[in-house]
C-alpha cells in the first residue's frame, strides 16, 4: 500500500478521536493505591497510637517529605505519558524535598550525642523498611504502568523509572501509617532506598513493557 492510500484509509470515515479513557485510568490508579493500603493494613497493621503520632511534628516532616515526592512524581508521570511534553523543570523539583530532608538529617546528626547517632540512622527497622516500601509499591507500580500503556510515552526508560518512583513515593506515604521510625536520617536514607528499588526496576523494564 503506498502512503497516499494509507492517508486515504486513515482520513476516511470519522477523524474525531475516541476520548482518552480518563475514568478507566483513574479507576486503575485508585485500585492500585487501595490494594497497597489494604496490604499495609492487613499484613503490617496501622500503628495503634496513630492519633498520638499525628501530634508529632516529626511524623508530619516524614509524611510531607514522601507526599511532596509523590505529588511531583504524579505530575512527572502525567507529562511523560504524552509525546513531546517538557519534563525537565518538574524533574528538577524532586531535588527540593531531598535537599530539605537531608539538611534536617545533617543537623539532627550534628546536634545528637555521638552515641545516639547510630540510632538516628539505623533505627530498629532498617533491614525491612526499603523492602516493605518496595513491596507496597508493587500494586501501584502495576497500575501506573498499565495506565501509561493507555497513553503514549515516548521516552520509555525515563517513563518506566518515573512510574517506579511515583509508585514508591506513594507506597511510602501509605507505609508512614505503619512505620515506627521518625528520625530524618532514617527517612532520608532508608525510605529513599525503598523508593529507588521500583525506580530501578522501572528503568529496566520500561522499554519493554511500555512499547506501543
Amino acid at each position, binding site marked *: 500500500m503506498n502512503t497516499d492510500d494509507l492517508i486515504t484509509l486513515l482520513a476516511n470515515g470519522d477523524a474525531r478521536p475516541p476520548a482518552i479513557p480518563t475514568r478507566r485510568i483513574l479507576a486503575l490508579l485508585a485500585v492500585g493505591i487501595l490494594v497497597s493500603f489494604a496490604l499495609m493494613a492487613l499484613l503490617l497493621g496501622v500503628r495503634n497510637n496513630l492519633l498520638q503520632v499525628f501530634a508529632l511534628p516529626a511524623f508530619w516532616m516524614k509524611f510531607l517529605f514522601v507526599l511532596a515526592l509523590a505529588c511531583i512524581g504524579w505530575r512527572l508521570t502525567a507529562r511523560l505519558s504524552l509525546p513531546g*511534553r517538557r519534563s525537565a523543570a518538574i524533574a528538577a523539583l524532586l531535588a527540593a524535598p531531598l535537599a530539605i530532608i537531608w539538611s534536617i538529617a545533617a543537623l539532627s546528626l550534628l546536634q545528637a550525642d555521638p552515641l545516639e547517632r547510630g540510632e538516628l540512622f539505623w533505627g530498629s527497622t532498617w533491614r525491612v523498611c526499603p523492602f516493605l516500601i518496595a513491596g507496597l509499591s508493587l500494586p501501584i507500580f502495576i497500575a501506573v504502568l498499565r495506565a501509561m500503556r493507555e497513553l503514549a510515552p515516548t521516552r520509555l526508560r525515563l517513563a518506566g523509572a518515573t512510574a517506579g518512583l511515583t509508585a514508591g513515593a506513594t507506597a511510602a506515604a501509605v507505609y508512614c501509617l505503619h512505620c515506627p521510625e521518625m528520625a530524618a536520617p532514617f527517612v532520608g536514607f532508608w525510605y529513599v532506598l525503598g523508593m529507588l528499588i521500583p525506580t530501578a526496576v522501572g528503568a529496566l523494564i520500561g522499554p519493554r513493557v511500555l512499547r*506501543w
Partner: protein
Amino acid sequence: MDKADNRNRVDDVETRLRALLLQGMAGDDAAYRQFLQATAAHLRAFLRRRLSGWPDEVEDLVQESLLAIHNQRATYDADAPLTAWMVAIAKYKLIDWLRRHARQGALNDPLDDENELFSTADGDARDARRDLRKLLELLPEQQRAAIFHTKVDGWSVKETAAALKMSEASVKVAVHRGLKALAAKLRKE
C-alpha cells in the same frame, strides 16, 4: 537562510498543521486529510535525513509514524506545541525501528552499489516495502470488516453498524482497536 526566517517558517508550519489537525478532530475529514498529507511530507524529510544509509526503509517508517500519529491523536493537547508532539512520536518510532533492526542484524547488511542505484527513495515514489493492506487482512474479522467498510468502501458508521449488527460506538471502537493492532503487527515484523 537567515535564522529568523527559518524560525518564522517553522512557526508557519506549526500554525497551519495545528489548525488542520484541530479541524480534522472536530470532524472535518478534508482538513484531516490535508493534515496527514502535509505531515507525511515533513516526516519523509525528517526520516530521510536520519536514515540516509537505508533509503528503501524510509517509506515504511513514514507509514508507521503516520499510523502512530493517527492512533494517538487524542493525546495531542491543544495547548501544547504540535511540532514537539509529532517529532516526539517520529523519533520514538525511529528509535524503536533501529532497535528492532539492530536485533535482527539487518543493519549489518552491506549496502552495495546496486542497492544504492535502484533505491526508490529519490524522487517522489511512495511505495513502502511492506504492504499494509496484507497486514490489514490479518486482523480479527470484526475489526477488519469495520475498517474496510468505513474506510475503504466509504460506508457511514451507521450503515456499517447495521451490516455488522453492532452498535455505532462498537464500530468506532473496532476501527480504533484494529488500527492499533495494525501498529502492533508492524512492530513485530
